[in-house]
């Protein structure tokens, strides 16, 4: 294959208020013509900065770019003048950003934003440019482009906005398209459509795509080759199959094991301890060594060079050095295996009595005159003692509102919630707040920035008077910190001194402090990086086992929900459409919405992504006929009409179609 772009020893640093941050450190890679190179990494790994620096989009100062070269068509982009760079941007290399809402100018029509790029690089009339823009909008799948081109960005939905941004990037037929987390802000079904669009573009136009993402599922779906970034460096690069099936760097291995797999239900998640290093003071040697469960001594001294695994596969780890003998390899394997076995000892859960019952719950909000938002519109389900009930759905489906109703944050508009057979509304509030607790989504806003960790954790104990002396309070806080795996000495610290995953643990400790029986976890991991997500999930599992907790686990990430839940409920537009044991739901989804949702989840497994059967591309819309929840198979409920019920029972499910 021809190389279209070649990067050698690229470094980017930022001079910030607090010090110099080395965001990208000595990165080298090639991009072939017509391929999709995925760059994977956690937040702060430098992937986004690196991609922006390829087209000179890093503001200098505070940014500073060093390196040997970025070679494009026999020219070094690093030596380009500002004017020359400008000519390159948009016409040769263009970029699509994460959030379409903010990457479009809100006060400019879509038309003017698209033709701006065309007119900058081509000497054509405005009329021709508009015609080209309409054609582009059609290409990216926007209906009635002639009409919609005169609209403003806010008149498009999120997915449509991203299509507009892609049209803008394609305006001058660039050779390279950089996509910087282009699907992260989108719902999973929309994400699937946008990914398909990228694939189509590449197929039809032979554009080379640099696709930046943190989602290994998306990578498996779209990439030809993968580069894994950690702490500003590329630690491993290779073909997508090589990275997924034969990872060499401990970080890549850890990342893959930290991801739940939709098909494989019983594997436990392996978490990566700690959090990524501070790039203001990057550690010497292998930056991952401190989080590596079985590092080599040399990892702490020298940074490993890139070792070749195959002709197409390289990794920066000393494990590939010739001096690493069989003995050491065995030893490492032993360490990792014992770790895995510890986690393996989970016995099958036995469901207890009914703990919580929700019947026909309704929560309507008043949004201005004659405008009622029916966030939750008649939802019923039950939760049994000791189980984890997962609640999934896309943003705005009412899942979080339902969760908040259960902890009494909202007064329900209609319906009833029974906890241990008692009506929640009638229940003693003090008792209620002790028995039902909540874990929140945002690790940054869920802790009062003015309080010490001890005060945050002890708040529930303060309110309910759960200790007799100051000494007992301190002891309890320290025990709780220990329980969630934090250093008890940090009780006097303030929240901003902790990382996201640590803050989430503090939130869990706060909920545990009142010794609840039931915990509503409202998207507790969606703001965390993959390696940290596994830590929190494992902690929740451990606590459930030790303390017999019952969870309602709310999330939009279906693979995580499946991993942690015993039963799963699917919500859509304020209503429950399907409830089933998690394995049953994933193997035999009945409701068309569940099917489209499952079909859209990218699986971190390139082979299955390429061959897997897809459900018919259902664009299911809520019909006027409101179904009822009916038990199709034992424990498997679907919202349907009588006729549909018959059909489901007969066919098992809608036809499966090869994609």
């Amino acid at each position, binding site marked *: 294959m021809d190389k279209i772009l070649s990067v050698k020893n690229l470094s980017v640093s930022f001079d910030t208020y607090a010090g110099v941050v080395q965001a990208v450190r000595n990165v080298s890679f090639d991009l072939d013509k017509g391929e999709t190179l995925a760059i994977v990494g956690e937040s702060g790994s430098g992937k986004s900065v690196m991609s922006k620096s390829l087209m000179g989009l890093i503001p200098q100062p505070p940014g500073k770019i060093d390196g040997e070269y970025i070679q494009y068509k026999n020219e070094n982009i690093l030596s380009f003048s500002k004017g020359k760079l400008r000519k390159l941007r*948009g016409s040769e290399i263009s970029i699509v950003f994460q959030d379409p809402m903010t990457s479009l100018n809100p*006060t400019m029509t879509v038309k003017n934003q698209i033709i701006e*790029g065309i007119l900058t690089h081509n000497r054509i009339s405005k009329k021709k440019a508009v015609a080209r823009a309409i054609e582009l909008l059609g290409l990216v799948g926007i209906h009635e482009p002639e009409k919609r081109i005169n609209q403003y960005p806010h008149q498009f939905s999120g997915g449509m906005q991203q299509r507009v941004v892609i049209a*803008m990037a394609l305006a001058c037929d660039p050779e390279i398209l950089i996509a910087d987390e282009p699907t992260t802000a989108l719902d999973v079904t929309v994400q699937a459509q946008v990914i398909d669009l990228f694939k189509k573009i590449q197929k039809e136009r032979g554009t080379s795509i640099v696709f930046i993402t943190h989602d290994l599922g998306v990578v498996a779906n779209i990439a030809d080759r993968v580069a894994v970034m950690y702490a500003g460096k590329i630690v491993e690069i290779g073909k997508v199959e090589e990275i997924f099936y034969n990872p060499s760097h401990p970080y890549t291995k850890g990342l893959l094991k930290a991801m739940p797999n939709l098909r494989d239900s019983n594997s436990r998640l392996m978490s990566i301890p700690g959090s990524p290093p501070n790039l203001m003071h990057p550690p010497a040697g292998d930056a991952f060594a401190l989080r590596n469960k079985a590092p080599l001594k040399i990892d702490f001294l020298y940074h490993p060079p890139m070792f070749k695994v195959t002709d197409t596969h390289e990794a920066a780890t000393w494990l590939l050095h010739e001096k690493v003998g069989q003995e050491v390899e065995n030893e490492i394997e032993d360490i990792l295996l014992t770790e895995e076995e510890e986690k393996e000892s989970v016995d099958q859960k036995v469901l207890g009595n009914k703990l919580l019952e929700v019947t026909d719950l309704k929560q309507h909000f008043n949004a201005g005159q004659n405008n009622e938002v029916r966030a939750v519109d008649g939802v019923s389900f039950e939760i049994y003692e000791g189980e984890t009930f997962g609640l999934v759905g896309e943003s705005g489906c009412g899942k979080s509102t339902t969760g908040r109703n259960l902890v009494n944050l909202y007064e329900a508009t209609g319906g009833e919630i029974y906890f241990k057979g008692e009506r929640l509304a009638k229940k003693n509030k003090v008792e209620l707040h002790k028995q039902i607790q909540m874990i929140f989504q945002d690790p940054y806003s869920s802790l009062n920035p003015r309080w010490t960790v001890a005060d945050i954790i002890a708040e529930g104990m303060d309110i309910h008077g759960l200790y007799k002396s100051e000494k007992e309070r301190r002891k309890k806080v320290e025990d709780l910190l220990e329980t969630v795996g934090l250093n008890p000495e940090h009780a006097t610290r303030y929240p901003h001194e902790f990382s996201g995953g640590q803050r989430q643990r503090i939130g869990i400790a706060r909920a545990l402090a009142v010794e609840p029986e039931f915990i509503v976890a409202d998207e507790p991991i969606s703001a965390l990086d993959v390696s940290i997500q596994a830590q929190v999930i494992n902690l929740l599992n451990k606590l459930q086992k030790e303390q017999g907790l019952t969870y309602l686990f709310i999330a939009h990430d279906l693979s995580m929900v499946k991993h942690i839940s015993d039963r799963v409920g699917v919500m859509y537009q304020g209503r429950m459409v399907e409830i089933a044991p998690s394995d049953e739901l994933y193997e035999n989804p009945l409701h068309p919405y569940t099917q489209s949702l499952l079909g859209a989840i990218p699986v971190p497994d390139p082979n299955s992504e390429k061959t897997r059967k897809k459900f018919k591309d259902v664009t299911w819309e809520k019909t006027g006929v409101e179904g009822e929840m009916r038990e199709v198979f034992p424990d498997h409920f679907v919202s349907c009409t009588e006729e549909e019920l018959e059909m489901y029972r007969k066919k098992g499910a809608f036809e499966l179609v090869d994609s």
Partner: protein
Amino acid sequence: MTRYILSRLGYMIFTFLLIASLTFFLMQTLPGSPFNDERLSEAQEKILNQRYGLDEPVAMQYFKYLGNVLVGELGVSFQFDGRSVTTIIGERIGVSAILGAQAMGLGLVLGGLLGIIAAVRHNTFMDYTAMIIAVLGLSIPNFVFAGLLQYWVGVRLQWLPVAFWQGFEYSILPTISLAAFVMATIARYMRSEMLDVLGQDYITTAHAKGVDRWKVIRKHGIRNAMIPIITIVGPLTVSLMTGTLVVEQIFSVPGLGEQFVNSILTNDYPVIMGVTLFFSLLFIAVIFVVDILYGIVDPRIRLSGGGRN
């Protein structure tokens, strides 16, 4: 959009009625006001009786007064015997309007430029200089600044006339004195709005399209930064109005502000009331126009029909 305009219009009328009522009841309690003054001559009392019906109950007087206000009948001056307040305002407003418009124009242009330069050259010497100018402009009271200008440029250097209103050069010092505050306020807002806008993703997107840097700043940056600036034009108009009271007094400019201050000094209550109402109406109208303009300029509001907030 129509509903939005109507609701703003409703607020506008209500606010004006509130101020008119406040003025009426305050004047009722005031010794020496047209409603209870022992200094009045027989003839004046007769006219007032006819006009306001002073022998009628307060409620009737109130509605009569409101009726008069609504048709622009604001009473008769004490000081300039027999001349109606409306006429006085009519004679004086021209000068103040010219002065105000010049100051507003100068302040907007200079402040806008200063703010844009400061934002584009963020954290450089130019930025710091612009912000020091802005803090000074905001902090130094207009009467101090006007006094300084008059003393140094007028008295000591004798470059420009010290007082009165006989041509353009007479308006220069008062205009500068008034514009300083406007300029400083606009510069600060413009800078922070510009910094905000320049940090947005769509600016990076525009750069990624290969558009020229200044064109990006002009077409994407300044345009979006100016929308919120519109909202502070309302409050700035008030500061200009109150500014004219001081500046016209210092430079002996025969405008409405000077008239107002003199009326206060001579207890000419009908004029005070009239000018107060006039200023209020002007202010309310400006706020109304600004609100509507904001809705028109920002497509997110124009096309969704809501107000800001």
